[in-house]
């Protein structure tokens, strides 16, 4: 991969335990600016925890993470500053059920960034249009399908103009038919040059959208390669096993 610009996310040898269970056992990876990186691997391999470490929802025990020059593992971390740079979308969407789609998108820019309401609303409507939810502005999350809710969640995250987007198995809870509409949205973001770090079980999607694929198992990265190489000729025995099971 091109190393001309420094990576926007740099993870160096991070360790994390929950009680006796060591979930991450020395993980290192880099996400170059403007690129899309996918993390795949069996359940319980530490993928989600890894992602959560990047925006400090989980604090690491050892190792370091920098995002856009910000040291995430510093004890004096400005969490708010970090989270303005890093957007995250969850498996269960986690929209605010008492607010409409438009309000969900507008809340953080208005109240956290203290942006002007009128211009924020214009931007929010544009974002909803971008995720193909024009006409759903006044719908409450409960009135939307899973795929629609997930796209609202993506728009909500984008409204903060993050430098990096984290996607944590965002299609895992969706019906097969609605998976595609969400993946199309993410692919468009990737093509626009937004840096994306994606945990996914959608192999076809990973192959199509990623510049690099990481394979994790038992808290370690076993393999990292560009998708063509990764899927065509995985080097590690465990990777082959996993891909055979899935594909």
């Amino acid at each position, binding site marked *: 991969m091109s190393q001309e610009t420094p990576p926007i996310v740099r993870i160096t040898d991070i360790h994390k335990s929950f009680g006796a269970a060591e979930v991450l056992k020395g993980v290192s990876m880099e996400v170059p600016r403007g690129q899309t990186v996918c993390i795949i691997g069996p359940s319980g391999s530490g993928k989600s925890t890894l992602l959560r470490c990047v*925006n400090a*929802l989980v604090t690491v025990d050892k190792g370091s993470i920098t995002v856009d020059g910000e040291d995430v593992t510093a004890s004096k971390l400005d*969490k*708010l500053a970090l*989270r*303005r740079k*890093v*957007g*995250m979308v*969850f498996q*269960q969407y*986690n*929209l*605010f*059920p*008492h607010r409409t789609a438009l309000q969900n998108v507008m*809340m*953080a820019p208005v*109240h*956290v960034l203290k942006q002007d309401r009128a211009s924020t609303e214009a931007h929010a409507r544009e974002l909803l249009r971008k995720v193909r939810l024009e006409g759903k502005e006044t719908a409450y999350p409960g009135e939307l399908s899973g795929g629609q809710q997930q796209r609202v969640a993506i728009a*909500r*995250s984008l409204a*903060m103009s993050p430098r990096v987007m984290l996607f944590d198995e965002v299609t895992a809870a969706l019906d097969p038919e609605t998976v595609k509409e969400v993946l199309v949205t993410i692919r468009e973001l990737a093509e626009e040059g937004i840096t994306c770090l994606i945990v996914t079980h959608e192999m076809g999607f990973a192959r199509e959208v990623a510049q690099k694929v990481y394979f994790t198992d038992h808290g370690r990265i076993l393999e990292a390669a560009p998708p063509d190489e990764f899927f065509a000729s995985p080097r590690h025995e465990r990777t082959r096993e996993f891909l055979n099971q899935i594909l």
Partner: protein
Amino acid sequence: MKLDVAHKVVGSTSSKSQAWMATLFMMSLGFALLVPLHAALAAPAERGWLDILAQWAPLIFKGFCLNVAMSLVAVVLGTLAGGALGIGQCAQTVWVKRISWLVTEFFRNSPTLVLLFFCMYLLPFQVQIGPFEVPFPAWAKAILGLSLSKTAYVSEIVRGAFASIPSTQWEAAETLAFSRWQTIRMIILPQCLKRMLPPWMNAYAIMIMATPLASVLGVNEGLTFTRAAITAVGRPDMLTPFYLYLLALFFIYAYPISAWTIRLERRYAVRS
């Protein structure tokens, strides 16, 4: 206290008992209205029980109004303090959490009557504020004592409601850089309000029932005046009408509240 039991029966059984309660409610209302009606219409020839009751009813009613007023002020105080304590119980700072929990548990497990005595004997009769001596009357102490119980209830209601909101809501808010206080104010509390309303109203209904306890502090509320009236009249046969009248007033006031609470509970139970 009697009405709490009645309330629970309604809550747990069929619409048949609801019809029963409604009948009882109408009977109470009829009885309460009978008194002024009689006073207005009947000729004062012979003094029957209704005449005597009609003579004293305004006083008892006036006392009952103080019960209602005390409960209303206490509910406002208790809700404010309890809301703060409940949020404190969910705080991230350990000592805030511990103290809030301790205060809540202390008042939740204290009998209201004991709290009332506590307020009566341990608080001064007047407070010195600058050059002014502000009296601290018994009714104010009663309000304080009543609001302490309510505070504990509300604190638990808030804590319980907060706990019922999935942690993923906190996480989503955190990811969007909301501060903790913003998260509580804009995201968690608004989702809790609906869930908190029925138990809050229930706690209020319990509190209005506790207000006659203030009679032991010498507050001139409904029960104090009822007993005064009985003493003044000095007729044993008047005990029943006088107490029934006071009970009817409480029932008329509290039954709609508990009936509405049950309706709300049902509605939210179906939705969730």
